[in-house]
């Protein structure tokens, strides 16, 4: 996983609440068996005027000029700003892969859906929760001054707005540590293989039906 320490870049304002993962990456692209290549189809239904199918050359498609990610300088954005409950709906990690493949490093919103939040942290895409009025302030600044740079520091857990205001956010220490260092979760967990085996031993004696009958 790509580590996240500090990132400075352009923030695209996506002024919607309840942005669902079907909108972030529509179902037809979930047929891919790969982790990469979803970027051109991030927000496909909003970004293009013609219906999209896997395998199409996105440079040949009709783009929707009204959609924020089709407008300069937001087509170069590396952070997304949205309203509450971002990433609700399906558990598809493809939504996170589409955002990172587009070039996003962070999403800033007043709240996130639980599964999206967890998926995001496992792929180096930092979900930043700010208060609604802070998000509102960022919307106003970014819309008034489109190319302005915003700096997000996971080390300091701060967001520096274009006007210099600094907002603080929190992230639980475990996730922060893994993100800062880009750690592989599985390798870390396997350090506790003995604990897992001990649990299985206990389960066999206390709840013998759990595993014995799993063969079916």
């Amino acid at each position, binding site marked *: 996983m790509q580590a996240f320490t500090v990132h400075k870049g352009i923030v695209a304002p996506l002024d*919607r*609440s*309840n942005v*669902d993962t*079907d*909108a972030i990456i*529509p*179902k*037809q692209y*979930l*047929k*891919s*068996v*790969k*982790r990469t290549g979803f970027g051109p189809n991030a927000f496909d*239904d909003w970004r293009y005027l013609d*219906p999209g199918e*896997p395998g199409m050359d996105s440079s040949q498609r009709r783009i929707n000029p009204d959609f924020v990610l089709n407008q300069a300088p937001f087509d170069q954005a590396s952070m997304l700003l949205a*309203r*509450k*409950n971002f990433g*609700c*709906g*399906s*558990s*598809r*990690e*493809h939504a*996170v892969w589409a955002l990172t493949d587009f070039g996003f490093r962070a999403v800033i919103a007043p*709240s996130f*859906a*639980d*599964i999206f939040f*967890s*998926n995001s942290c*496992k*792929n180096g895409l930092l979900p930043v929760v700010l208060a609604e009025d802070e998000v509102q302030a960022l919307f106003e600044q970014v819309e008034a001054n489109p190319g302005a740079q915003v700096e997000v520091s996971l080390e300091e857990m701060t967001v520096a707005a274009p006007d210099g205001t600094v907002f603080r956010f929190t992230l*639980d220490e*475990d996730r922060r540590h893994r993100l800062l260092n880009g750690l592989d*979760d*599985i390798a870390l*967990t*396997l350090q*506790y*293989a003995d604990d*897992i085996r*001990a*649990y*299985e031993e206990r*389960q066999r004696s206390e*709840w*013998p*039906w*759990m*595993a*014995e*009958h*799993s*063969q*079916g």
Partner: protein
Amino acid sequence: MAGKTLYDKLWEAHVVREEPDGSTLLYIDRHLVHEVTSPQAFEGLRLAGRKPWRGDSVLAVPDHNVPTADRDKGIADPVSRTQVETLETNVTSLGLKFFPMADVRQGIVHVIGPEQGATLPGMTVVCGDSHTSTHGALGALAFGIGTSEVEHVLATQCLWQKKTKAMQIRVEGELRPGVTAKDVVLAIIGRIGTAGGTGYAIEFAGSAIQSLSLEGRMSICNMSIEAGARAGMVAVDEKTIEYVRGKPQAPSGELFDKAAEYWRTLVSDPDAEFDAVVEMDAAEIAPQVSWGTSPEMVAPIDGRVPDPAAESDPVRAEGMKRALEYMDLQPNTPMTEIRPDKVFIGSCTNSRIEDLRAAAEVVKGRKKADNIKLALVVPGSGLVKQQAEQEGLDRIFLDAGFEWREPGCSMCLAMNADRLEPGERCASTSNRNFEGRQGQGGRTHLVSPALAAAAAVAGHFVEPSALKEA
């Protein structure tokens, strides 16, 4: 000290290790796998040279991409075919339990888990699918995970989790005739909102929930995620134990009795404290129809499409306006004047035998209305289909002009050929009415099986009791 909630008990029984900051390594008993969210996990496992920790915890099935017609011809779409074949190669090479498309036990992963006894009370159940919350109806801790977590569970049999808060939603009293589990859960989401349960595990309780069958409880727990909660659950009672008895993968004989003794403890203690409690009066719940592009946008069947001008919160009003524009609906339109083009009866929410019976009861002796271009019935599994055919339900649907298909996720998310065309309106028993969910530009109205069936025969939304005599 306060008693324990059902969630506390399920959680504590699966703790492998707890760190000082509360991060917990939680043991996973059952891992359900489908073709869409697993290929990258198996690839990751292979690239790292890892093997599944406990292969017998896995049950794999293709459901999202499978065709519901002409199965003998295989899968026409080459991209879908590759994904289904990839699942088969991945699981068979590792010797994992798998129901291929031609197996009568194939079906939607959340229908076959309980049907096979692969998901049992007291288990932790995960799947790379947000509707995994369904299995909580059995008194299990079941939640959806992303693909990185699928790989993590395959490799370690565990997940790092932090205990969430617990919410109890109590629905007390008697449901009105014609009001189903689907209406209850839609009314709950309408009340608490799609983020109302975020950060919580929800326990559904109260006399109205207890009065429901296990299948009804599954429909409710299924849509916990539409209320924002990863996990939903219902306490174990004698109905739960009778439901599990005799299922193919359930324990039997003395071991069953021993298990049942433990399962009976899987209830919240009377003095358990929840972080939030929501109370609802069952008698006040009417059959529900969604009008917008979020599952919280629901109205009673005798209600009207709301007016954004009457909404005081500007962000909310803007969302409503956008939804009505997408849905091509005018404020204040009576719900009964909305005319669908297609009807879909199926999905992990409502494709079990009781759902099909409820729909067939409405359809029996009637015909599909002329404005309904397609009325699709997609059973949740091959075994549900078989049971329905033994009861003659397929004939009822076919005689009325409906189509009777093979099991799968189908038009709930339109990854196969079953989909809405741009602008088409659908009465759907599925769980999500997001923009484009059932096909780009498609317009979804979420309803119960009985209401979907009634809409198919009347050509507009209507309470089944208001239909003319068959």
